[in-house]
């Protein structure tokens, strides 16, 4: 029964991918070219890493609105460290550390001190953006980037896959083990279902919530590292473009597959990246594609919500009975 439902959901997902792909391909045959598919996968890597991090927070039924700000802060830290001539691993480590620290702060403030997640993360995100201005007064950093080798992160290949996509796959594999094949993952889902009963079942709910926020921060900073590697400069607005696609990917995936999971998020990210890539290819201005993305998000949440889909089904049955 469960597997039949999963088959149905997978078929629905494949149909969506096919429809979107065909629509764009019919508009521009360049959509299916190798070059474009590779740039689609690069785009998906950046969005996917941010969305994967967010998935953990959504699984424990919390919200994180700070990751775009944290990502900007991580981007500037990374840029500043490279510009001051430090070796690349240290610089990347520094950028990820920012994500970890802010994530931990979010988690501790929300889980231990019991502050409301939405407003707290909006505030910490705002703080992170403010701090990110300190490195260069808001101008973008690109000194030393060519020499440091960070661009290789974008250009190199591993096992036939572009490096960014390989990183996404690696992160997704790690995330899948953590969320779907370990006690930690079961604990995360249990915490999301009912925090009180999870607590009394002996699950360290607070620690898991802190972990989820930390992973979200790290995911955002890893995503922005790849974005910097492809654009070759760090700037303070780098994270702004992460918020909507990440939320859309997680919710679209959760809507398609019934609950948030690593696979669902990857599926959602693929759909979002296909759409955004297609719109860019057709030279549709960003404000139209943003409008379409948000409409898709609203529709996805509405259609797949159990109450609404129940209503639709009942209405369908009634018309079916009438005819």
């Amino acid at each position, binding site marked *: 029964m469960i597997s039949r439902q999963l088959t149905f959901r997978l078929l629905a997902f494949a149909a969506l991918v096919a429809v979107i792909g065909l629509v764009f391909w019919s508009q521009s045959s360049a959509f299916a070219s190798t070059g474009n598919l590779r740039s689609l996968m690069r785009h998906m890597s950046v969005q996917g890493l941010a969305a994967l991090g967010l998935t953990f927070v959504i699984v424990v039924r919390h919200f994180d609105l700070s990751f775009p700000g944290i990502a900007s802060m991580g981007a500037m830290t990374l840029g500043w460290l490279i510009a001051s001539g430090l070796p690349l691993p240290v610089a990347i480590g520094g950028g990820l550390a920012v994500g970890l620290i802010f994530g931990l702060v979010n988690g501790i403030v929300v889980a231990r001190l019991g502050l409301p997640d939405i407003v707290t993360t*909006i505030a910490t995100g705002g*703080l992170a953006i*403010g701090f990110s*201005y*300190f490195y260069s007064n808001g101008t973008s950093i690109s000194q030393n980037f060519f020499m440091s080798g960070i661009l290789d992160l974008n250009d190199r290949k591993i096992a036939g896959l572009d490096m960014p996509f390989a990183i996404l796959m690696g992160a997704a594999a790690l995330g899948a083990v953590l969320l779907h094949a370990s006690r930690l993952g079961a604990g995360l889902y249990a915490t999301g279902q009912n925090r009180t009963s999870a607590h009394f079942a002996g699950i360290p709910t607070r620690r898991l919530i802190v972990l989820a926020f930390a992973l979200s921060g790290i995911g955002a900073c890893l995503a922005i590292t790849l974005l910097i590697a492809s654009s070759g400069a760090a700037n303070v607005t780098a994270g702004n473009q992460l918020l909507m696609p990440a*939320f859309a990917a997680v919710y679209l995936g959760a809507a398609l597959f019934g609950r948030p999971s690593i696979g669902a998020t990857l599926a959602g990210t693929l759909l979002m990246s296909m759409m955004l890539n297609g719109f860019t290819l057709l030279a549709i201005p960003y404000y139209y594609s943003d409008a379409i993305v948000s409409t898709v998000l*609203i529709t996805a949440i509405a259609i797949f*919500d159990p109450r609404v889909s129940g209503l639709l089904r009942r209405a369908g049955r009634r018309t079916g009975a009438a005819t």
Partner: protein
Amino acid sequence: MTDMTHTQVRVRRGPPRGDVLMRYAFFLLVLVVFVTFATLRPAFITPGNIHGMLMSASIAALMFLGLTWLIAAGEIDVSFMSVAALSNMVVAGLVFKGAGWGLAALGGLGAGVVFGLLNATLVAVLRLPALVITIATGALAASIAAAIGLGTSIALNNTGFVGDILDLRVGVVPLIALIVGALYAASWVVQERLTFGHYIYAMEQNRNAVVEAGVPVNRMLFLLFVLSGTVSSLAGVLLAANLSSGQPYLGTSYFLDGLTAVLLGGMALKVGKPNVIGTLTAVIFLIGLLNGAALLGWTDSQRQIVRGSLLLIGVGLVVFARTRRKA
């Protein structure tokens, strides 16, 4: 029944001593900060500066009125600033195309009402999660706003009757400040003295209990979202005349301020419950703080950090006050 209501009122009227300090601490803080600015930079209290501050405070306060009630009712709306930006751009776009200001203002208001209805339908009727829905509708409004100006702002060469209203003043006080003040006074009566307001507070405490008590919660929530969209768009219309242009990205600067004003203001008077008087005070505080900080030569990033910290402090205080009260 009447007895119960009476005891409840008496309890609220007679708070413990420590609470009195909490209630009025925020007003004291505002006073201290403003006096400090005035002594450090006399330009802070010139009539022109006061007029400018009151003007921006009235528009911001108008935008945050609906948000105050939504947060007081335990819901959230993060689309308010984008709705304001949208109606701002609708007005600018219509005036630019040659429409009269009356029609343009109606169009701007209409856009706000439409988005209010959209939020209300999705959240109050279909019971979808408010945060994600308003993130999405906010993004939709923002992208439509950007699309109207094809990504840039629209400059206007006249500000029509809306501009005339904004220019009216009583001494140093702009007329619009008096109007918004009156609106806030009316809202205070509604929230603190009428049943409607009591239900708002009750919804935050225990939604199910309010439903069981026979209150049409969904209808109230519907109204609150429509109200939030309407007042936000009204602020957007005023901003079109105030800035004599349409700015598609004006929303971002109001986002943090709106939430900060509501949550920080919640500390005033009601110790942890968002209320209109608190919001009004907090808006004046924030506008004064940013203005004074600019006079002192602070950079944008420093002000951003102050905003973020204030929001965190506001939330922290609200939660602290609530847990202490429950204990």
